[in-house]
């Protein structure tokens, strides 16, 4: 399980990069969902978000899932190419598959990588 130490994490399995404001879903989330076949971003550049608001909808062959904003703030950028390449969420969840970038982000209640690793381990048993 890949859990980068420089990122922060939500209980609903999103990652957030405090340095850049970027966010997406974690390696754990993509492995649980299995092959992602569809992704739709629900927000646009310039939108103002509260933490916990749905920002994307993701479908795999197993299930569909809502993705929530890990932090509040203004949407500075959205990854427009992602809709045409949903498989990037499986292959590169922390890189190519970033979903949106937030500006002036007010972090919600986020975990560090150690806490998130423990949280994932608890759920696999």
């Amino acid at each position, binding site marked *: 399980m890949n859990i980068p130490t420089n990122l922060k994490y939500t209980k609903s399995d999103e990652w957030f990069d405090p340095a850049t404001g970027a966010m997406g879903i974690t390696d754990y989330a993509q492995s649980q969902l299995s092959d992602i076949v569809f992704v739709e971003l629900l927000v646009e550049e310039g939108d103002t978000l509260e933490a916990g608001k749905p920002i994307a909808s993701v479908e795999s062959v*197993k*299930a569909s899932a809502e993705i929530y904003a890990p932090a509040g703030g203004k949407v500075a950028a959205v990854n427009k190419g992602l809709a045409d390449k949903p498989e990037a969420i499986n292959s590169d969840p922390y890189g190519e598959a970033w979903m949106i970038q937030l500006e002036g982000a007010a972090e919600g209640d986020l975990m560090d990588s150690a806490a998130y690793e423990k949280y994932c381990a608890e759920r696999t048993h």
Partner: protein
Amino acid sequence: MINAPEQTKVKIVEPTIFDLSSPGRTGVTMPASDVPETALPPEELLRPDLPLPELAEVDVVRHYMHLSSFNYSVDSGFYPLGSCTMKYNPKINEDTCRLPGFLYTHPLQPIETVQGNLALMYQLQEWLKEISGFAGVTLQPAAGAHGEFTGVLIMRAYHKSRGDHKRVKMLIPDSAHGTNPASSGMMGLQVVQIPSDSRGNVDLKALEAACDDTVVGMMLTNPNTLGLFDENIEKVIELVHNCGGLMYGDGANLNALLGIVRPGDLGFDVMHFNLHKTFSVPHGGGGPGSGPVGVAAHLVDFLPEPLVGIIEEGEDDMPPLYGFVKPAKTIGRMKAFHGHFGGGMVRAFTYIAMHGPDGLRDISQYAVLNANYLQARLRGTYKIPYDRICMHEFVAEGRFEGSDVRALDIAKRLMDYNFHPPTNYFPLIVHEALMIEPTETENKDTLDAFADALIKIAEEAKTNPEVVKSAPHTTKFGRMDEVKAARELVLCCWLPENYSDQ
């Protein structure tokens, strides 16, 4: 013990009907016309470019006979698809729904000419009321989700009629069928998810916290999709009622309760039935389903119109005159005519009439016994995450310590043993879920053969995981590329670019 059949690599693939076409072949030879010829429609409406296949009748019949032999159905084998209640459909249903009096009627006929049909619908309404403990039933909804939509419309109309306009939230447990949030969403309601506790019941603390005066109600399946009867059901209903909300029952799992528990007696306000699950109407293949809705006394006035009612009471040997009645505050029509009459109501009526009250109770008792028997046989080989006495179905985990075999692989491998796979990856709150519902119609030999196959597959997952991960091997087609099918949607055999832009 049973063994997996030899792995045959011979694949017999049936070409598409377009591949079988040859220019100039015709289906039938027409005799000389004995009626005057009329002109074709105007030329601009004619479509010479349509790629209609050209085949003889015998080729068409053989093509579809071949395809039908590839099918797996409840008539060809065990079909333990959890939450779907794929019970055997007795063949007497097929006789009754083809009786000429039922078959050759039209929904717009004068009521005096269809009294038999109306009497059947009236009696079915009465029976469903008796079975469920509700005060009124509509037979209109075309399927389960349509019944949910009808029920939620009734709940909303009830609140509105009381001038209570601030209710916008529907409470739905995390074990719910996806149709529940979808039906609420279609109504523009906000869905609030309520977690399950460690025993698979609704988490009472979370429910209590969510209950306030903005709640329309709660949609609950009981027994739930884990196959568990909520141990606190009375408390759950009390919490929802105390905040002014209504309790909606998803009747998908009614097969566990017939003649034992009546949802209306528990305090549910609304519930849909699935005649195509519980009452042996054929299920699958895209319908027609049938999703009647029952309501408690305070909601009867809101039922869709028309209901079947008695217009004139009978006397001595004179039967009553049946007709259509309109509830006082009806939400309106849910369907153009009266619901799925021959396909749904006549079959369900036959099933209930053939079983009677004691027979219906037997159905549920055997359904629950069969599920518990299978659960007991698989316990120890498969992890049962919510391990309690189950109702008519249960959920196991399709994964093993130190193995990368998954629920999907187990499901595919079951096809090599000639069983339809159970529901997998649902409910979402179980890892690698395998949701197994044997139904009451299966005998012990079938249940044992199925359990043996699952136990054998668990062994294979350790000793020969590749054979499981690449299954099925004995079907006409091997493992389908589900990812490609979902990512590259091609729903038409004739691609849009082939259409000339005239």
